[in-house]
């Protein structure tokens, strides 16, 4: 089956062949459209001010980056993405490592970590992961923490209304195997 424009010139007779081709065209259009990316399925943008995480504290879960019960159809590729504006290590401390984790249904699926010097700001690119999820409802959330400090430390994960952090779930098209 392939798409083929059906011509209806003056006095073109009505025929089974022409109508069949028009139905075939509709089927072809459906087949082409179904695997296309469907865009963002869910997102949350958080303009709240910074969270400060102290060393030895448990990872701070959920924050306000929490997307429960997002329906994902079968056989799709899903891109999960978390952004933060800036990380800052408290002045007076030497350095520490900071990590942001992204979870799907309670299991970590992506993270980024970086070393931050005391009194310095550091950007961290967004955390991303592509997944082929089973059909059904899924919960996405983010957590933050710091570890292995050189001296006592606290890290601010900064957001504000002009530079919000965002967690998004985006459909990237029909599933294809790796390779």
């Amino acid at each position, binding site marked *: 089956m392939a798409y083929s*424009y059906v011509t*209806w010139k003056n006095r073109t007779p009505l025929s089974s062949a022409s109508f069949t081709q028009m139905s075939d065209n509709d089927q072809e259009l459906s087949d082409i459209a179904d695997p296309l990316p469907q865009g963002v399925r869910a997102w949350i943008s958080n303009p709240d001010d910074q969270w400060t995480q102290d060393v030895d504290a448990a990872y701070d879960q959920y924050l306000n980056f929490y997307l429960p019960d997002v329906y994902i159809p079968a056989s799709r590729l899903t891109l999960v993405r978390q952004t933060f504006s800036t990380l800052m290590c408290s002045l007076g401390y030497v350095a520490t490592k900071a990590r942001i984790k992204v979870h799907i249904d309670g299991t970590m699926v992506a993270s980024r970590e970086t070393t931050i010097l005391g009194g310095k700001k550091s950007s961290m690119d967004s955390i991303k992961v*592509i997944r082929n999820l089973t059909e059904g409802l899924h919960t996405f959330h983010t957590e933050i923490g710091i570890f292995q400090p050189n001296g006592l430390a606290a890290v601010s994960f900064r957001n504000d209304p002009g530079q919000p952090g965002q967690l998004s779930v985006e459909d990237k098209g029909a599933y294809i195997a790796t390779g």
Partner: protein
Amino acid sequence: MPSEFSYVVWGAKTPITTNKLFQMSENDQYAYELATSASQGIIGWRESTADHNVTASYTTINGFTLTKTIPSDRLLKVHFHCSTLQGSTTGNCRIQVRITVDGTMFASREADVEKNYKRSLDDVEAIIGVAGGSHTFVAETRYQVGGVGTPSVRADANQPMQFWIEDVGAFVSKDT
């Protein structure tokens, strides 16, 4: 492309006319061209859950080679994402990650990583238009200075590194 979509009304006793059938064909053509020119999404990807040790010469990162047949007149976005760079145990180093198409580099990032430090590497990504046909995309890495002590690009089962090609729509020229 046909000028626009126009719904064709078929009420009771509506006569079948050439104009109505013509418009239905035009509508199909309009939808067909919209669908085929739209972004097609991810057309190839790879994933690794193992660290990749960085050496002085470029090496392919954990099998991150993608050979794909690309239709003509499409735009692609090629993307490499990793969790973290791990610095050397013996001194500071500079790590570079690049993406090539058919052996030519078109995207790269570099980061200085202090001894024993971890650094987040911004994603390496770029939009590229290529001629229709088969093309090979590769993600590679090397250290440029001070790499003794096995710096690495890190990954594990809970924080994989990924490499993907996304069709982002019909080709448009760069806006100059």
